[in-house]
């Protein structure tokens, strides 16, 4: 019976290896592999019971007790089993050796044509490059691949749906802190090994955290493709949250906070603007975190955060560059397939209540030149007002020919520089303007002129020439974005994450054609409303000369 068990195990391993390879090649769903394993596992006790209770005879199965022991063929069968075990063991060793020699399981070329081709999602909208493929693993991990063989390099973006909006008092900054911890070791790899392995394979990485997302980026030569999968799979499966490493990392993040906010007047004002413009929604929290939270979050906070947000069903990955979709999906199944899905994270329930009057904010610190930031509540990424507002922002602050640059910087010299952007997240955000003022600026005059100009859009609209120019700039930027594999990854990923479909990225030129001057005027009238404005000033304390 022991021999039967051994033979069964060896045979099962061979069957699993062969059929498993076939299933992967066919692009079968992940459960197919697991189902195969289950069938083989169920077969094991059945085989043992049969071996114990029955004998296999030339005339069929007979109960052991019914067999005349003098006529028993157990010995002969045993010998056959011995042979079978030996053959299977030899085959097993050969298979293992064979596998060592072959980097991946491949069927002979000759039978490829007769096997059905793997099926992945192809683009189904007009204007979308036909070579893009998408696929969602059984555990919910979504992967998009855009092959581009111009340079022998690959870019990976991994979008984790976790950012400042998923935080609350006590854990503000945790998403960003976690971004750091993802590089700090796993059960298999000590701190530093992730980067050492990647860089030794020619790759580099980075990551960023926003109000909505944590995004991981790898840039690597195609020769490092499987290394990248192994590294990414390892940290998603086996992340170690080592308490001593957490303490060191607090110091690093604190240093980052000091650089970007505490010692930078722009950052200082920006943090408090968000904290003032939002009173309920978590967009009020700084992505870097409040200082006391950086000092105090706990091991438990980190562990539950990882389990909730770094589950495959909360991730979207994009690969662009010198790859074939099939190899990416195969590697994804191999390295990410076994990671279990988790319950979906809780939805963000808090809706920012309507602002009913303007809010003002003053920061008095040592400031050689004053700063002014102005924000209005606006829409989210998919709000129909968002694209016309982006066109308008281009008209107002897009480069040195823009309206506000010409008026405030060139003609009236009220500002040294002006810029603006719109938050385009999952939840309604802000349209934001930031001005650097001359040392002797009359802040009230600047404010009046800025608001007059914004008002002018609401009352008089924009010209067709301004609209055409903004469109041209945005179309050229769109093409520039698609001229690198990095830009391609960012473009696809942004559309997939915020619009639920990467194909939306390619709709931009068409959508821009539809934006009208009337629409822009209506959006300006709606959004540039002083009741929903927050205005912040940072300057030296009154009565003190600026440096």
């Amino acid at each position, binding site marked *: 019976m022991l021999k039967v068990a051994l033979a069964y195990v060896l045979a099962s391993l061979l069957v699993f290896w062969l059929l498993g390879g076939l299933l992967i090649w066919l692009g079968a769903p992940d459960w197919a592999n697991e189902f195969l394993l289950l069938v083989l596992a169920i077969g094991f006790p059945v085989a043992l019971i049969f071996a114990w209770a029955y004998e296999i005879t030339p005339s069929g199965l007979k109960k052991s007790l019914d067999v005349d022991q003098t006529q028993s063929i157990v010995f002969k069968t045993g010998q056959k089993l011995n042979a079978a075990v030996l053959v299977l063991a030899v085959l097993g060793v050969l298979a293992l050796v064979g596998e060592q020699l072959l980097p991946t399981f491949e069927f002979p070329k000759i039978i490829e044509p007769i096997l059905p081709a793997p099926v992945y999602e192809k683009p189904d909208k007009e204007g979308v490059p036909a070579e893009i493929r998408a696929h969602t693993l059984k555990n919910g991990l979504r992967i998009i691949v855009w092959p581009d063989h111009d340079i022998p390099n690959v870019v990976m973006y991994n979008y984790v749906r976790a950012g400042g909006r998923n935080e609350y008092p006590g854990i503000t900054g945790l998403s960003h802190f976690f971004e750091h911890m993802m590089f700090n070791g796993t059960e298999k790899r000590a701190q530093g090994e992730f980067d050492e392995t990647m860089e030794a394979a020619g790759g580099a990485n980075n990551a960023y955290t926003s109000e909505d997302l944590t995004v991981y980026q790898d840039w690597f030569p195609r020769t490092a493709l499987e290394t990248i999968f192994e590294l990414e799979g390892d940290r998603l499966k086996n992340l170690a949250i080592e308490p001593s490493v957490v303490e060191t990392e607090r110091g690093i993040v604190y240093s980052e906070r000091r650089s970007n906010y505490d010692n930078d007047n722009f950052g200082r004002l920006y943090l408090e603007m968000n904290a003032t413009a939002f009173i309920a929604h978590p967009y009020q929290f700084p992505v870097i975190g409040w200082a006391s939270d950086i000092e105090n979050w706990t091991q438990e906070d980190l562990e539950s955060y990882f389990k909730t947000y770094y589950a495959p069903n909360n991730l979207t990955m994009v690969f662009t560059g010198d790859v074939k979709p099939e190899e990416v999906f195969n590697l994804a199944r191999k390295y990410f397939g076994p990671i279990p899905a988790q319950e979906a994270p809780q939805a963000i329930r808090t809706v920012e209540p309507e602002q009913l009057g303007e809010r003002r904010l003053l920061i008095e610190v040592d400031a050689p030149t004053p700063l002014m930031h102005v924000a209005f509540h606006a829409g989210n990424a998919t709000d129909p007002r968002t694209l016309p507002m982006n066109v308008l922002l281009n008209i107002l602050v897009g480069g040195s020919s823009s309206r506000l640059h010409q008026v405030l910087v060139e003609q009236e010299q009220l500002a040294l520089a002006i810029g603006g952007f719109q938050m385009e997240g999952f939840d309604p955000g802000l349209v934001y303007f930031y001005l650097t003022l001359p040392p002797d600026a009359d802040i009230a005059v600047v404010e009046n002129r800025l608001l007059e100009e914004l008002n002018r859009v609401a009352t008089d609209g924009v010209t067709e020439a301004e609209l055409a*120019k903004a469109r041209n700039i945005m179309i050229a930027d769109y093409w520039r974005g698609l001229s690198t*594999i990095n830009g391609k990854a960012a473009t696809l990923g942004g559309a997939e994450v915020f619009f639920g479909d990467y194909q939306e990225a390619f709709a931009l030129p068409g959508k821009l054609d539809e934006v009208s001057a009337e629409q822009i005027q209506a959006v300006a009238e709606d959004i540039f409303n002083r009741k929903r404005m927050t205005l912040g000033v940072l300057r030296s304390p009154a009565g003190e000369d600026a440096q």
Partner: protein
Amino acid sequence: MRVSRTIVFLLAALGCYSSFAAGVSLPDAERVVLANGTVLILNENHEVPLIGLEAVVPGGASADPADKHGLASLLAGLLEKGAGDRSSAEFAEAIASVGGELSASADLEAISVSAEFMSKDAALMVELVRDMLRAPELQRGEFLKLRERSVNLIKAAKGGDPGELMPAYANAFLFGDHPYGNPVGGSESSLANITLGDLLAFHSDMMGGDRLVIAVSGDFDTASMQKALTDAFGDWRAATGSLPSIQAAAPLPGRRVLLIDKPGATQTYFYIGNVGVDRNYTHRAELDLANTVFGGRFTSMLMTELRTKSGLSYGARSTLTRYAKPGALFIVSFTETSTTVAALDVAVGVLGQLRDVGLDQAMIESARNYIMGQFPPRLETASQLARMFASIEANGLDVSYINDYGDSLNAASRESIAAVINKVYPPADSLVFVILGDADSIRDEILQYGPVTEMSISEERFHPQGERESGLSGRADQ
């Protein structure tokens, strides 16, 4: 089974490592020298409907007079403020209306114009670049506005991230009166000395067709682009002045410290280094390998010690600036005010470790793979290629600078790298420290690094005034 597949991938990956530094090479390009000396480089490729252009005129901020730092940079800025038949606003409008990008800037060695336009707008692009270089308005009103704005933007930067001002302080202290110590954008006080007449003179002295290099890459027809550029620049007059002759600066002996006081700063920013090497340094591959390991990537020795292990800083790196003559080599980092000495000690210690222990074979392999693996995306777009072609030509190099680089990396040995480290990285007793922070909190403890010269961030200059070294006693009365 999973284990065995892992082994397979490791073996396969190891096999790849040794062979993939095969090299990167520049695409073919036409090189044409016009009768007036202008050099054109044309690299036609039709992947995206864009054209990148880079025009370089040598000279730059190292030609700024001693009391007029920022002159070349101000001129570059003013080139965009009206040219040919277009006023400043009209010029900006012409670029933006077709979604183009066009800007001029100065660095120590040149004034450069970078452009990127959709291919259908190639003729407009050439016209705008021609007007900017050959026929800028250089109008008084625009000049006064730009000068005042430039002064105020330096003031504004002093309220921003101090890390951005550090290169100006560091180069000024290291190179002193040498042209490589010039702050490219000028200082508040030096900009005030510059007149419109200075700009006009710089334009005719330093800029002309005999010095111009234009590289174009992207979606165009070579013959017609060559004709357009020849028509635009073939008859541009020669520059009337001579280029500055720059002597190589020698590394500074001993130790010295510049302390820039920013009262209330909660963080200390520091540069530590000395004079490094020039662009033509023979052992560039060895040096790049060494610097990659020392401070050129995330797992570098500096990052490991100052960030990963100790949490002293968010970032640390080592920079090499290479010009026609030796530029600077600096360790760059920052830390909380209270850990200033700890971080400085670690940085100096890592430098010692580099010199004493050097690189092992695994580090060299890793650095080689890293440099080559990260190279192709640097030459991916038309604009990147145009910039690279122009830089090679303007600096008197040839394409072997790129094309043979992979081979040089492969040829570098542990011994040749060790020799380079020893020669290029300064020993612990020859270091220049430039430290910006809250002086009251750190003044006393940084005396240990050498004689301290102190200045305030509110001073309207980057060069410290008077004696470079004030020493211990000099501080006591202040």
